[in-house]
């Protein structure tokens, strides 16, 4: 998708430039470099989802952008004598960011297409990637180069330059296009394709972190102009571009890219090497935090609303009783998933509610119905003899409820409430569909970050089990303790 957005943006920008009615105001004199020096910071815009050029690592609990492009930007900043500031944005907001002067330059593995050139000034090309083919290690000897794949299926990202290259240069191979590289790697491993075409550093990243994979060089020589990467600047920033080009020249002369690649590789290794899943514990921890947060908050609200519903259902007021019964039956008769959607989109019609809030509201409302039934059956489980004994002593209905029935009912309710809490830990996973960063959502993040499809699922599954299992043991402990009192 990333690639796609790039092409699109290129064209969009080109169009804007072409149709261009109110063209960008003419710059008086080029004070771009001077301005940077004056404010003391150089702001780089990038979309950090394209390792090893730019990607996120978790440093002391905080996400940080690293990669080859960042190293280059650092060099430029230090050459100018200012501090580098990295701003994350979507790839398709980058050029807009330049135009609106939110960022001073854009480094995001961007190819300087002629369309882009119409709205943006580019530095010289600082890197030209070759195209590789990822194969299963077992087959590494069978394939020499792109020509060895005659009659085989080959995978590439849908809409990517690689897909075009396959169509164009590997006419005797069949193309399988999938949107995500991770899916392509899964397809490769299950031999749905025999090779996956990818840019060299991307291929290298996968091969470095999966011992079952190997690289085969494509053997294509490609036009560097349509294949290289350059730094984008706002139109007319000639002095700044010149400064950047000077730094790039030095980088090239000193062969610094290699060391930058190594630095990036080290980050990736730290990120994803052998203890890979463990290394991502902070991601999972955040997921656990949200999952438990949603669960805990929902349980609290669920208990409050649920108690209200239970009292309405048990009470004598016909209208309130009917409302409570209808609510409880309806909520218990429909899937939580649809309730989450209903709350998110339904409330969204009237007020702008964040996904987390919507998720908590939906889970709370859902839980309330189950809690109401727990409370009701807790009260029902107290033998009528207890009520009769209390009433025949002269206690009023209310006194009977508060002094005799409820204190005993709470003992019965407690374990069931505990189970409800545990089951909410599992159920709350559904809020991930509206984008709440719970454990399931985080596992998807780790999937993309580690190039692994199944391992993060498994880890999250184990985490869920450990959560529910320990919690049920803890609750069981308290339960036993309470019964001994």
């Amino acid at each position, binding site marked *: 998708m990333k690639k796609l957005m790039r092409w699109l943006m290129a064209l969009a920008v080109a169009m804007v430039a072409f149709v261009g009615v109110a063209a960008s105001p003419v710059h008086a004199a080029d004070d771009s470099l001077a301005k940077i020096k004056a404010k003391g910071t150089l702001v780089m815009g990038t979309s950090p989802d394209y390792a090893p050029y730019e990607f996120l690592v978790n440093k002391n609990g905080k996400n940080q952008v690293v990669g080859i492009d960042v190293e280059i930007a650092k060099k430029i900043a230090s050459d100018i004598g200012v501090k580098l500031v990295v701003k994350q944005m979507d790839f398709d907001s980058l050029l807009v960011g330049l135009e609106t002067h939110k960022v001073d330059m854009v480094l995001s593995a961007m190819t300087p297409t002629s369309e882009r050139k119409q709205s943006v000034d580019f530095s010289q090309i600082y890197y030209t990637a070759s195209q590789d083919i990822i194969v299963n290690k077992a087959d590494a000897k069978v394939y020499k180069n792109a020509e060895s794949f005659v009659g085989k299926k080959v995978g590439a990202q849908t809409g990517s330059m690689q897909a075009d290259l396959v169509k164009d240069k590997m006419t005797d191979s069949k193309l399988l296009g999938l949107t995500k590289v991770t899916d392509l790697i899964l397809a490769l491993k299950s031999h749905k394709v025999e090779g996956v075409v990818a840019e060299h550093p991307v291929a290298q990243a996968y091969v470095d972190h999966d011992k079952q994979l190997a690289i085969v060089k494509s053997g294509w020589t490609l036009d560097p102009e349509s294949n290289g990467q350059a730094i984008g600047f706002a139109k007319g920033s000639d002095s700044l571009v010149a400064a950047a080009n000077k730094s790039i020249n030095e980088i090239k002369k000193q062969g610094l890219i290699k060391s930058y690649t190594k630095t990036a590789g080290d980050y990736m290794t730290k990120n994803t090497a052998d203890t890979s899943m463990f290394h991502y514990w902070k991601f999972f921890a955040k997921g656990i935090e949200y999952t438990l947060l949603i669960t805990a908050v929902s349980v609290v609200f669920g208990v409050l609303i649920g108690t209200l519903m239970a009292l309405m259902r048990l009470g004598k007021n016909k209208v309130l009783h009917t409302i409570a019964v209808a609510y409880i039956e309806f909520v218990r008769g429909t899937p939580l998933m649809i309730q989450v959607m209903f709350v998110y989109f339904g409330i969204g019609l009237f007020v702008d509610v964040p996904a987390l809030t919507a998720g908590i509201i939906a889970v709370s409302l859902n839980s309330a119905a189950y809690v109401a039934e727990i409370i009701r059956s807790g009260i029902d489980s107290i033998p009528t003899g*207890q009520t009769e*004994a209390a009433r*025949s*002593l002269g*206690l009023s209905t209310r006194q009977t409820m508060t002094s*005799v029935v409820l204190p005993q009912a709470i003992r019965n309710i407690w374990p069931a409430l505990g189970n409800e809490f545990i089951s909410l830990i599992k159920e709350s996973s559904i809020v991930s569909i509206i984008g709440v960063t719970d454990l399931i959502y985080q596992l998807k993040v780790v999937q993309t970050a580690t190039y692994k499809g199944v391992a993060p699922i498994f880890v999250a599954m184990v985490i869920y089990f450990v959560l529910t299992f320990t919690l049920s043991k803890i609750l069981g402990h308290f339960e036993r303790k309470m019964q001994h009192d």
Partner: protein
Amino acid sequence: MTKPLIQINHLVKKFGDNVVLNDITETINQGDVIVVIGASGGGKSTFLRSLNLLNQPTSGEIEFEGTNLVGLSEKELDKVREKMGMVFQQFNLFPNMTVLENIKLAPMKVKNQDDAAATKKAHELLTQVGLDDKADAYPTSLSGGQMQRVAIARALAMEPDVMLFDEPTSALDPEMVGEVLKVMQDLAKSGMTMVIVTHEMGFAREAADQVWFMDQGVIAEKGEPEQIFTAPKHDRTKDFLSKVLAQ
């Protein structure tokens, strides 16, 4: 001593189509000890529970100390039930309270007695039923006989004008029946008005002023215990007694 305490007029109770009490008219006088006997399902429990309106009668009147209870609001009934102690087959002690708390609950909540007075009274009653050493025990740690004696003490704490017993010894192991009957006997001697449903014929013979034989929703026969046990008139009474006394 023969002032009518409870006057029952044309009492009828139906559960759906099932007529459980069929037009009962009886008088219970101050100080009477009435033992109700009869086969299972005859309506004994229903009759007893109608007296303090735990069961709402279908029709008829229950006059207690001059007021008709049928038709009173729940709030008014609360006042009446204070004066009618009830003891159940299953004891129905509150398991989450100690023996003392069980006894003090109603006096403090309903009569607004202060803690000291209620505690003092409770200890007196526990001594009366022979269980003062169990004051701080929880019901689950007691034997059935002890639980039932606590239940009696709890009912007495409200200083009721009449005590209703529904098979108070049926759930007990045989060796514990005696201790409960003993407490009831003492109570009868002290002049308490009592209505007792039981299968303990020996007790009925000794303690009852009157024995009522209940069958299919009516009081089929009633009289002094001697008369009922030695010369029952009604066929059903004869049949029932022959079965129960055979053993």
